[in-house]
């Protein structure tokens, strides 16, 4: 098969699904099948691209200004992101089919169509050849997910949606766009290249500003203080929170930051400037503060959202350590966190569907009535914490290695390790207590509940199994991550 054709297929398939789904609204079963089949096809296409020998093909869709093209090409990092997003899209579709019906949600056709559209923009982000293209689809992703956030249509949903839109678009236009313009003016190009394009083109005093503009402009990465959109987005139906706000949208943010560090600024250049040890303070504080806030949240989804904010900063932290282990750890965490967090969100949604409970404090004793859900929850939680027998351990392993190898001031080296340690303890506290209480505390009321719908349980089992599988066989992700960092297969 032909390489460029498969690239086009990866970009077009979800768009076709969008159109088909909106046409098939009258037949829900066919509609969901289309969604699932497309997701499976998309995953197969990307798997093919992953296995095929890399070809340096660049597809130019449009060139509004010379040297500013809308162009797509395949990179290993893009493959990793696309694999995660498309694979989990399949799982989420199965989950959503059960969830949306059990929950009697309105406008389900619009929901599935926009979902496919969001995945289409994620694919375009993953395969963008330059920062300009990435920026455009970054904005498209914001706009296409907005109606999903406000899906319920209540005034609370609209308030949440307004904050979502304001923070994401405001910061990207206010900071990300100027950063992009400064980059273009200094380097004369925005194309991603291994080793970066800014080496020797910008002096340190500007790089400082530029990095801050990127970090806060790409607010999808959830660095504090621009993280508030994520808890606000939790008003969305659970499948949206699960795939988009634990995987696709937030990972698009950290993906952008990784791209900027690896292929725009260049890790070597950033290391020479010795800025990273100051920049690291932002993700470090985000990790700790978000974990602390998560402990105070009684709403389950909101607690998970703050946990996501904190975990995203692990990836950013890994990127800014600028050494091999840190970068590999950050990249691996992109995948490991995705599997674990989607399991947690699926479980939260299953609890909501079965019991209509949203508060952590109401879950005591539920474990005996919904054993599968809470076991999956526990697996996800332990993977996020980074305990053995779960995939999350490996990404944390390399992150800790990265912290030890970090070549900045000793103070920073120490605080990196301490941050990781404290955060792990906090994770145990606010995540693992939930299944513990569910299993071992007496129930607060005597009502009985059934397990969640079967499709939800199946969908939960898949990522939970992946969490365990990747502990015993992390090579797939590790190899991809090290290829990305060392630049093989670019």
């Amino acid at each position, binding site marked *: 098969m032909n390489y460029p054709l498969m690239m086009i297929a990866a970009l077009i398939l979800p768009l076709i699904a969008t159109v088909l789904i909106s046409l098939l609204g009258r037949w829900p079963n066919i509609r969901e099948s289309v969604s699932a089949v497309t997701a499976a096809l998309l995953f197969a296409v990307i798997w093919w691209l992953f296995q095929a020998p890399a070809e340096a093909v660049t597809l130019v869709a*449009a060139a*509004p*200004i010379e040297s500013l093209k809308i162009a797509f090409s395949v990179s290993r990092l893009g493959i990793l992101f696309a694999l995660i997003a498309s694979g989990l899209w399949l799982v989420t579709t199965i989950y959503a089919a059960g969830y949306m019906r059990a929950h009697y949600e309105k406008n389900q056709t619009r929901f599935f169509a926009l979902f496919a559209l969001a995945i289409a923009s994620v694919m375009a982000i993953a395969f963008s050849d330059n920062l300009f293209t990435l920026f455009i689809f970054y904005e498209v992703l914001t706009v296409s997910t907005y109606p999903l956030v406000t899906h319920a249509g209540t005034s609370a949903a609209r308030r949440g949606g*307004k904050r979502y839109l*304001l923070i994401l678009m405001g910061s990207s*236009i*206010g900071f990300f766009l*100027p950063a992009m313009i400064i980059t273009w*003016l200094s380097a004369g190009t925005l194309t991603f290249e291994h080793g970066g394009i800014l080496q020797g083109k910008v002096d340190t005093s500007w790089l400082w500003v530029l990095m801050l503009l990127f970090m806060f402009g790409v607010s999808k990465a959830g660095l504090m203080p621009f993280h508030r959109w994520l808890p606000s987005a939790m008003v969305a139906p659970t499948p949206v929170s699960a795939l988009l706000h634990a995987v696709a949208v937030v990972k698009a943010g950290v993906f952008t930051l990784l791209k900027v560090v690896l292929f725009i600024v260049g890790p070597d250049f950033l290391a020479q400037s010795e800025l990273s040890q100051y920049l690291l303070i932002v993700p470090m504080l985000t990790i700790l503060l978000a974990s602390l806030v998560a402990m105070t949240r009684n709403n389950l989804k909101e607690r998970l959202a703050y946990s996501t904010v904190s975990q995203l900063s692990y990836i950013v932290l890994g990127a800014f350590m600028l050494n091999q282990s840190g970068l590999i750890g950050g990249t691996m965490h992109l995948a490991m966190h995705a599997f674990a967090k989607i399991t947690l969100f699926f479980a939260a949604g299953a609890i909501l569907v079965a019991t209509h409970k949203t508060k952590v404090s109401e879950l005591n004793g539920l474990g005996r009535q919904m054993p599968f859900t809470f076991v999956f929850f526990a697996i996800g939680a332990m993977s996020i914490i980074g305990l053995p027998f779960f995939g999350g351990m490996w990404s944390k392993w390399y992150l800790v290695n990265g912290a030890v190898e970090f070549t900045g001031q000793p103070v920073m080296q120490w605080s990196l390790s301490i941050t990781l340690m404290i955060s792990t303890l906090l994770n145990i506290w606010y995540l693992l207590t939930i299944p513990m209480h569910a299993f071992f505390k007496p129930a607060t009321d005597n009502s009985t509940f059934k397990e969640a719908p079967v499709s939800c349980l199946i969908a939960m089992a898949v990522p939970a199994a992946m969490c365990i599988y990747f502990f015993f066989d992390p090579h797939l992700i590790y190899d991809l991550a090290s290829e990305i960092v060392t630049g093989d297969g670019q």
Partner: protein
Amino acid sequence: MEAYTVLLVVIPLISAPLTALIANRHVAWGLSLLVGAATFVIALMLLQDVITGRVIHYELGGWKPPWGIEYVIDALNALVAVIVTAFALLSVLFGRQSVEREVHDSQLHLFYAAFQLVLLGLLGMALTGDIFNLFVFLEISSLSSYALIAMGHKRQALVASFNYLIAGTLGATFFLLGIGFLYAASGTLNMADIASRFEQYDAMALVITALLFILIGLALKAAAFPLHSWLPDAYTQAPSMVTVFLASTSTKVAVYVLIRCLYHVFPQEYWSQLLLPSFLLLSGCLGMLYGSYKAIQQDSIKRLLAYSSVAQLGYMIVGIGLNNETGLTATVVHMFNHAITKGALFMAAGMVFYRMHTTSLHQLRGAGKTMPWTTGAFVIGGLSLIGVPGTAGFISKWYLLQAALENNNYLVVASLLIASIMAIMYVWKIIEALYFDGEEKLHLHQVPSGQDIVAAMPLATLCCYLLVAACIYFGLYTDLSLDAAKTAAQSLFAGGPAR
């Protein structure tokens, strides 16, 4: 091809009196549609012919210039002609329903006749190579636009029209005086002729006086800050269709004439030594900031968009004032991009008015839920107005930014960025009111019952979305707009159309 040139002016010239005489509103609309379509096709053919850099000369009545009047068409005015005719066609399509509601039945045929005269005037201004002929066309278009604005449904329309009449007449008079001085100095009215023998009289004090008079006259017509005061009222009070048409064409044509005079009548070396570029930059930057600032404070959508037009005209003036090729490219391409953006937005505003009988934002809270498509048009048009990448507005701002950086003019860069942030604020203001506010019930005024059938505007929605699609298309595929602008800017800097 040459022979078609004159048809652009002749077709509306014949059709306008016919429209007035036949006095049937359906015929009037049909004729206007025909005129719009015919001129649009011709203009497109002309643009295709000259986009490579060729120049068409057409001698009216076979009289050789400089004695006779000649029409000179290069990439610049072909692009302007395309803008003008395209918007004539689209506004006629758009206005089918809204005009019938906003203008009294007995005046409809006169309305369309006046509309065709405006089109005639604007096209004439764009095409002619004779400066006195240009004045004549300027007056034709101005006089008929006063009439059009005065037909607005509120009584304030008369005041707005009267204000515009005073300002417009002042502008025209200044322009005429300037032409008079120039004629006294040079003894000719043909633009190319004036320019080619400029060294013979450039020392005369009369010439600089002429330049100033012409500039001020045109600045008034183009609503350049601080001579913009007529614009917000006129755009707010005019019937929706007139607003759409005038907002996307009339000021652009005035800017075009300004460029034409500055590069093809007065040589560039002559005026760049004066303080003029700095004055243009000052006027443009202040216009950008002031217009955006006032736009944020407005409550009526139409008024808000009108002030935003003042700001966007500032961008075009800045592009001229930067006095380099990139800046001029930015101005020309912004003429085009802003026309489609503002056209789409004013159409959306027109549809809101048609449906809700008000354009006041505080009365429209939550209307977005009843009009999702119109709100969608506001969102995309607004993004283009802000200049988000992927939309047409980005292209022009990008070039303007580059032009400013070429001159190391960081003051312009700063005002550009501040004005863009202010643009986010006023666009957000519309979106917020239409979509996010609105717990309370909508207060509709004078809406007949069974309103859903009455309010559906399929044709208008189609036109609006055509422009919305253009906002995105020309943000991605810039072959047509940017190439024409580049060719135009190059030929302007090379010193006039080749003979």
